[in-house]
């Protein structure tokens, strides 16, 4: 039966990993197909005093889905049905295992899509998007996952089920649950908001002679009162790697490339593109192309979203970071990131959501080289430090998980953390739903467990 717990070595090995470099050793893994089966699994874990952890596709990069030793993994990939689509209300009820890109494919005949579009959208699940409050390039104008979730059916750590929505509680429990990284319970059905596909789209690829010029152009576009639907930057090394991989026509001689997309009604797109063109030339753009067809546009986005695949051509391993800084500090922090990588003798590439100030420096290395992991970890901590120093935050979309748990004290006071812990206690008083994530050790939680091997915090 589908509710059975699997304990064979291969499945446990897979269930012990996610998109991070860490590894956990779960007790067992089960694949429920209904809310009742999820409820049974949670009740079983509860009765045995075993912690449980929900899991989608395991694409998370911060170790949020790494199971605590001896816990039950509740893998939701078999709960992958779209239960209903209401084209009039522009909403749909989906199960947590539905893939992000599949939902938009299924709703395209209604002219609708699910707006959050993380780079992993071909393989990540909606349930995972809810757990991480995921972003993506188009969240610049559309907002992140939280802005697109209407209600949630949840199995609580107590084993009870309930619904969080805008009407049935005073506090916004729906909003509090989103981004709780699996620590407040398990969403078993999700009502998403769907948005109309834009009738007009202009996708521009702009080259700059320096990252600095590109970063200033980003700030200028926003300061001018234009909110593009996406505003992405790639530096020269990643642009070259991507171009060899997908042949999207990115400028190979540019030190920085911006992808600027503007969508909506006809005149706003025409006028907006014209203004963007004027602004970028004022800031020293060295090339400017506009995608003429949907095929060209798709190739540009394929290039942007498969950037991480292209890295494998350069070095066998990479570490992808995720911090946010105020837009006006982009140029400054990017040059600090370069200096940090040079100091630690690591190659670094940048491909990121510039319009949000959301940096994604990628450190590349070969982990077979002795001592390299120490340098990678030192550089990572430095990147976090300079981002916070610039007035930024720890994570824009990957979450805290295990990776940044112990950096939480760099951003928050003990009292700030205490109130986050209080919120968790209201949902999970016994701390059995994905324990020991997000909040640092000793911040009032009961958590003192060991860190899984492979983690570097």
């Amino acid at each position, binding site marked *: 039966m589908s509710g059975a717990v699997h304990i064979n070595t291969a499945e446990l090995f897979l269930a012990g990993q996610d998109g991070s470099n860490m590894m956990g050793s779960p007790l067992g893994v089960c694949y429920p197909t209904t809310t009742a089966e999820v409820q049974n699994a949670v009740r079983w874990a509860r009765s045995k005093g075993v912690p449980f952890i929900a899991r989608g596709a395991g694409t998370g990069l911060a170790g949020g889905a790494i199971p605590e030793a001896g816990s039950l993994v509740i893998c939701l990939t078999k709960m992958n049905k779209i239960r209903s689509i209401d084209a009039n209300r522009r909403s749909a009820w989906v199960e947590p295992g539905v893939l992000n890109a599949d939902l938009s494919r299924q709703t395209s005949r209604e002219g609708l899509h699910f707006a959050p579009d993380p780079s992993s959208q071909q393989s990540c699940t909606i349930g995972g998007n809810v757990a991480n409050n995921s972003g993506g390039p188009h969240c610049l104008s559309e907002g992140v996952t939280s802005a697109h979730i209407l209600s949630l059916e949840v199995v609580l750590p107590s084993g009870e089920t309930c619904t969080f929505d805008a009407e049935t509680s*005073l506090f916004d429990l729906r909003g509090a649950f989103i*981004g709780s990284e699996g620590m407040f319970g398990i969403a078993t059905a999700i009502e998403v908001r769907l948005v109309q596909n834009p009738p007009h789209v202009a996708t521009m690829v702009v080259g700059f002679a320096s990252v600095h010029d590109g970063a200033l152009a980003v*700030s200028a576009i926003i300061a001018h009162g234009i909110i593009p639907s996406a505003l992405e930057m790639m530096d020269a090394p990643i642009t070259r790697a991507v171009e060899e991989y997908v042949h999207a026509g990115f400028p190979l001689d540019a030190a920085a490339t911006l992808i600027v997309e503007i969508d909506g009604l006809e005149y706003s797109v025409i006028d907006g593109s014209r203004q963007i063109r004027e602004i970028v030339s004022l800031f020293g753009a060295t090339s400017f192309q506009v995608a003429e067809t949907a095929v060209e546009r798709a190739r540009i986005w394929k290039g942007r979203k498969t950037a991480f695949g292209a890295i494998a051509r350069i070095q066998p391993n990479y570490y992808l970071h995720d911090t946010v*800084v105020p837009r006006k500090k982009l140029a400054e922090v990017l040059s600090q990131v370069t200096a940090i990588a040079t100091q630690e003798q690591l190659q670094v590439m940048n491909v990121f959501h510039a319009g949000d100030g959301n940096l994604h420096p990628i450190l590349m290395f070969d982990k077979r080289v002795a001592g390299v992991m120490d340098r990678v970890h030192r550089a990572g901590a430095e990147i976090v430090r300079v981002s916070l120093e610039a007035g930024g935050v720890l994570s824009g979309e990957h979450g805290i998980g295990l990776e940044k748990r112990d950096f939480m004290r760099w951003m928050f006071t003990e009292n700030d953390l205490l109130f986050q812990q209080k919120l968790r206690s209201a949902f999970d008083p016994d701390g059995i739903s994905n324990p020991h994530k997000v909040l640092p050790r000793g911040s009032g939680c009961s958590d003192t467990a060991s860190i899984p091997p492979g983690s570097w915090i």
Partner: protein
Amino acid sequence: MFKNAVNFGGAVEDLQKKIAISNSINIVGTNSTGVASNESEDEKLKAPAGIISYEPDELMISVFAGTEIHEVNIELQAAQQRIVIPDWGTIGGAVATRRNGLRETHHQTLPNNVLRCTVIAADGSLYQAGGQVVKNVSGFDLVKLLVGSWGLLGLIVEVTMRTEPLPQVSQWVKSAHPQAREQASKLYRPAVETLIEGVTYLLLEGHQNDVEQQISLLKGFALCEMPSLSHQYQYQNLNFLSQGPVRSIERGIRKQFDPTNKFNKKIAAQRNLLT
């Protein structure tokens, strides 16, 4: 050294001291909701007022929560920007009551526009949620919890919000025709679509030509001014009670944040959230 902790000065410190020693506190802005308690034993406290920082290029403003919205709007209009809250009461009041107003149907409603809150807790300590950037998943989303918390989780003293550029054109249209909503569905993402007493109101915003073109698609609609809404309409969510496990979680949150029922007892009682 990078922590959120900011020195907000004497006014906030005075409030912290008062809250630490008080037993019963009624948080009041301008009492635009009309639900503030008149019980005499309650100490009435209001957040300080004033704009702390405004950076138009970053599309972000930070204010003391007692600042009146019309004062903020004067500052914003000078830079051709706006915030999503309707123009009455204080910022703190709007945040605490999740006052989206007519822009409820728009995706960028209030909760998505509040980036950071600084709060005085029941013991007089200060805690902060969120950060001064537009995208942030650092820890649990206490900001979402505080927006619409009706003062039950502490006194919000500071709020950082997104601002947005003013659109070139803003035009309301209305129709009382039964098929009005069907007509509206032909449009591309109107800024607001709302039904008030049988009348469908739409707000169309953006480039002048686009707005004109969208209006030309509508049959039986007339141009109009922004409709006014009664406060009862805004605060209807006070009239029902949560049930079962949802109520247990709500009570759990209140108990964790305000164990001695210090803040806004009347509202807590009304919602069955006294612990």
